[in-house]
C-alpha cells in the first residue's frame, strides 16, 4: 500500500492543483472488486457483510439496514413511482353509480407522479452511492483487518468523524438541506419544462419534449412567443446594464466627492446616504410605489407648485416606467456602492498617487490611470455579482411596477424582467412549463454573461500572481 501508482489523469490533477491536491483514497471501487476477498465481493449483494465478518457489527448492520430499507421502499412505492413516470398518469377522476354503490375513483395527479418519480430517481442515485460506499468500506475493513489484526471499531469510526473526517459530520446536514430544498426543486422544475403542465392541464399532463422551448422561439404562441421573449430579454439586459453601471459610476462619484480632502462631515454624509439601506427594501419600494401613483404625493406636490398640468405617467407610459425604475434603483443601489467603494478608495496605496503627481499627472490622468484600474480590478467580481443580481432583481420591478404597463393580451409587461415574468407565469397564471423554460433561459443568460466577463477580467487572469 506504500506506493500508489497514480494514473495519468491523477498526475495531471496533482500538477494543476498543487498544494490543493488531495490524494485519492486507495480503497476504490475498482480495487475492491478486483482485489477484495470473497466477503468483500459478496458485500456488493449483501451490504455490510464484509464489515460484519471483520467485527464491524454496527457499521455492517447500518449498511444492511440501508439496503433493506431501499428494497422495501422500491417494493411498496418506488417501483410504482418509476413505472408511472414515463406516462405521468392517464386515469381521469370519475365518480358515479355502479349498481347500487356510489364509486369514486380519485384518478391520477401528474404533479404528484412527477414529484414522486423525480424523488425516487434521486433516491436510486443515493442508493448507488450507498452501494459503492458499502463495498469500499468492506474492502477497507478487509485491508485494515489484514494489516493491523483488527479493523477499526465503531467507536474508532465515531472518533474519526470528529477528527480527520469532521467534514462528513459537519457537511451532512447543510448538504442535505441544499439537496432537498435547492437541488430537488430545481430538478423537479427543470423536468416541468418538458411537460404540458399549464393552466389547461392542471391535473393530467404529458411529456412533450422540446415543444415548450419551440414555443418560446416561434411566433405562433399566444401566451409566450419569440417576440415577447426577445423584448423581455432585451429589456432585462438593458436594465441590468444600466442598473449596474449607473449605480457604480454615480456611487463612485459620490464616494469620491465625500472623500475629498476639504469636504467636512464625511461621516455625516455617509450616514445620510446609508439611511436608505437600513430601511427594509420592500418597505421603501412600496412607499415609492405609493408616492408615484397618478394621485400620489409626488404628482400632488408638482401640481401644487404648478409645474405640471396632469399627473405624470410614472408607471403607465413605457419609457417613463422604464426610466423611473432605473432611477429609483439608483436610489436603492448607490448607498451600497458608496459603502463598498469608500473602503477601497482608502486602501489605494498613497505612494501611487505621489509618484503620479511627481511625474506631473493631473487629476483626470490620476483618475483614469490609477483610481479606475485599481477599483475595477478589485470590484470586477462584485460588478458581476451585481449584474447577475440585477438580472434577478425581483423586488424592485415587482414591488414598483408589477410589470406595468402591460399591453392588452400579453403575459409580460413592458418593465417585466425574465424573473418577474417567470413569477407571473408560474404563481399567477399556473403556466408552470413555460415558467420553467424561462427559468432555464435565465440561467443560460446568467451563466454566459458571468463566464465571459469573469474570464476576461483581470482578477481572474492574474489570480495566481497575488497568492
Amino acid at each position, binding site marked *: 500500500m506504500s506506493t500508489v501508482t497514480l494514473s495519468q489523469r491523477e498526475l495531471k490533477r496533482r500538477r494543476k492543483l498543487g498544494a490543493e491536491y488531495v490524494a485519492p483514497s486507495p480503497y476504490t471501487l475498482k480495487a475492491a472488486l478486483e482485489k477484495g476477498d470473497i466477503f468483500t465481493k459478496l458485500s456488493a449483494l449483501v451490504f455490510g457483510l464484509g464489515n460484519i465478518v471483520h467485527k464491524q457489527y454496527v457499521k455492517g448492520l447500518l449498511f444492511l439496514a440501508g439496503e433493506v430499507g431501499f428494497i422495501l421502499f422500491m417494493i411498496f412505492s418506488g417501483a410504482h413511482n418509476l413505472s408511472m413516470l414515463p406516462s405521468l398518469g392517464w386515469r381521469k377522476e370519475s365518480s358515479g353509480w355502479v349498481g347500487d354503490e356510489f364509486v369514486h375513483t380519485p384518478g391520477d395527479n401528474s404533479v404528484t407522479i412527477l414529484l414522486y418519480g423525480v424523488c425516487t430517481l434521486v433516491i436510486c442515485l443515493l442508493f448507488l452511492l450507498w452501494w459503492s460506499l458499502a463495498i469500499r468500506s468492506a474492502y477497507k475493513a478487509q485491508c485494515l483487518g489484514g494489516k493491523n489484526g483488527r479493523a477499526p471499531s465503531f467507536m474508532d469510526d465515531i472518533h474519526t468523524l470528529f477528527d480527520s473526517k469532521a467534514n462528513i459530520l459537519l457537511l451532512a446536514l447543510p448538504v442535505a438541506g441544499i439537496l432537498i430544498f435547492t437541488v430537488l426543486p430545481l430538478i423537479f422544475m427543470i423536468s416541468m419544462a418538458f411537460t404540458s403542465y399549464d393552466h389547461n392541464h392542471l391535473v393530467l399532463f404529458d411529456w412533450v419534449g422540446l415543444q415548450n422551448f419551440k414555443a418560446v422561439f416561434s411566433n405562433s404562441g399566444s401566451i409566450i412567443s419569440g417576440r415577447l421573449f426577445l423584448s423581455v430579454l432585451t429589456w432585462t439586459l438593458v436594465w441590468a446594464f444600466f442598473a449596474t453601471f449607473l449605480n457604480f459610476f454615480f456611487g463612485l462619484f459620490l464616494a469620491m466627492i465625500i472623500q475629498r480632502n476639504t469636504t467636512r462631515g464625511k461621516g455625516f454624509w455617509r450616514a445620510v446616504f446609508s439611511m436608505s439601506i437600513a430601511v427594509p427594501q420592500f418597505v421603501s419600494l*412600496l412607499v415609492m410605489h405609493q408616492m408615484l401613483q397618478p394621485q400620489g404625493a409626488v404628482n400632488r406636490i408638482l401640481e401644487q407648485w404648478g409645474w405640471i398640468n396632469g399627473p405624470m405617467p410614472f408607471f403607465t407610459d413605457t419609457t417613463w416606467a422604464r426610466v423611473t425604475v432605473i432611477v429609483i434603483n439608483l436610489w436603492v443601489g448607490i448607498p451600497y456602492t458608496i459603502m463598498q467603494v469608500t473602503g477601497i478608495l482608502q486602501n489605494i496605496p498613497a505612494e501611487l498617487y505621489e509618484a503620479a503627481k511627481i511625474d506631473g499627472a493631473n487629476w483626470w490622468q490620476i483618475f483614469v490611470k490609477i483610481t479606475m484600474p485599481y477599483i475595477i480590478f478589485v470590484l470586477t467580481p462584485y460588478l458581476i455579482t451585481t449584474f447577475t443580481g440585477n438580472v434577478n432583481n425581483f423586488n424592485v420591478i415587482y414591488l414598483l411596477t408589477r410589470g406595468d404597463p402591460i399591453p392588452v393580451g400579453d403575459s409580460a409587461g413592458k418593465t417585466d424582467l425574465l424573473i418577474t415574468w417567470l413569477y407571473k407565469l408560474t404563481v399567477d397564471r399556473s403556466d408552470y412549463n413555460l415558467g420553467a423554460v424561462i427559468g432555464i433561459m435565465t440561467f443560460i443568460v446568467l451563466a454566459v454573461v458571468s463566464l465571459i466577463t469573469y474570464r476576461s477580467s483581470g482578477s481572474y487572469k492574474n489570480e495566481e500572481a497575488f497568492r
Partner: protein
Amino acid sequence: MSKHTQIKPQSQGFMHDQRKRRIVADIATYVLLTVLGIIWLLPIVWIFLESFNKNTAPYQETFFPTEFSLDSYISLFTETKVLNFPRMFMNTFIIAVFVCIISVFFVLSVAYCMSRMRFRGRRSFMNFVLILGMFPGIMSVVAIYFILKAMGLTSDGMTILALILVYSAGTGAGFYVMKGYMDTIPTSLDEAAMLDGCTRWQVFTKIIIPMCRPMIVYQAIVGFLTPWLDFVMAKVIARTQDNYTASLGLWLMLDKEYINSWFGRFAAAAVLISIPIAILFIVMQRFYQESMSGAVKG
C-alpha cells in the same frame, strides 16, 4: 473636480486663484450633497410623518400631513379582525429566531470545512454551489411548495415550520463570505492546537468559532432578517392569513381592497418594522466592515 486640490500649482497660477477655485468646488460639493441628501431622505421622512397623520387616506391634498395623531399605531394593534398584525409580527419573530440559529450553524460548518479541511470533492462542491446560485431563486418557489405539500407541511398549523425549513435549509450555500474570513485566520493556530491534542472538532468549536465572532454576528443578523424581508416565498407557502408574515401583511395593506382604510396603518407598521431592522443593520454594518477590511488587507 474632486481632485482640484491635488493639482500642483501651475507656473502662471496665483495663490488666490487656487483658493477661489477650491471654494467654488467646495460650494458645488455641498450644494450637490445637500440636494441629493434631501432626495435620499425624503421618502423615509414622508412615510414616518404619514404614520402620524390623522387623515389616513392614501391620496391626500398636501405632500406632508397637517394634523398629527397616534391613531394608526393604536388601531394597528387593537383592530385585529381583518388583518391581525400582532400575530403576523409574532409569526415572523418565531421564524426569524429559528432561521437565525440554524443558518449560523450551517454556514459555520460548511465554511470551516471549505476553509480548513482538504478532501476530495471540495473544489467540485464549491463550483457546484456557484452554478446552483445562477439559477433564479424564484424558479424553485413553486416546486418547493409542491415538495412541502407532499411532506404534509402546508396544512394550517405547519406553515411556520415549513417556512423555517425553507428559509434555513439552503443557507449552507452562502458560506463564501464566512470562508473568506476564516481564510484570514492563521492556520498556525490550528496546528498548535492539534499538536496539543485537539481534534478537528475541538479546533472548530474552541478556536475557529470564537475567532469568527464578528462574522457570526453578521451571519446571525442576515439570518434573522431573511423572514422579515422576504415575501415571495411566504406568499406562495402561507396561504391563510393566520400564517402570514409581517412583510406579507404590509404587502396586503396596499392591495386595492385594503388601501383606503389601511394606508395609515401601513405607514405605522412600516415604521415599526423598520426601526428594529435599521438598528440591527447598523450593528451588522460595523461588524461587516470590520471583517471586510481585515480580509482586504490580508
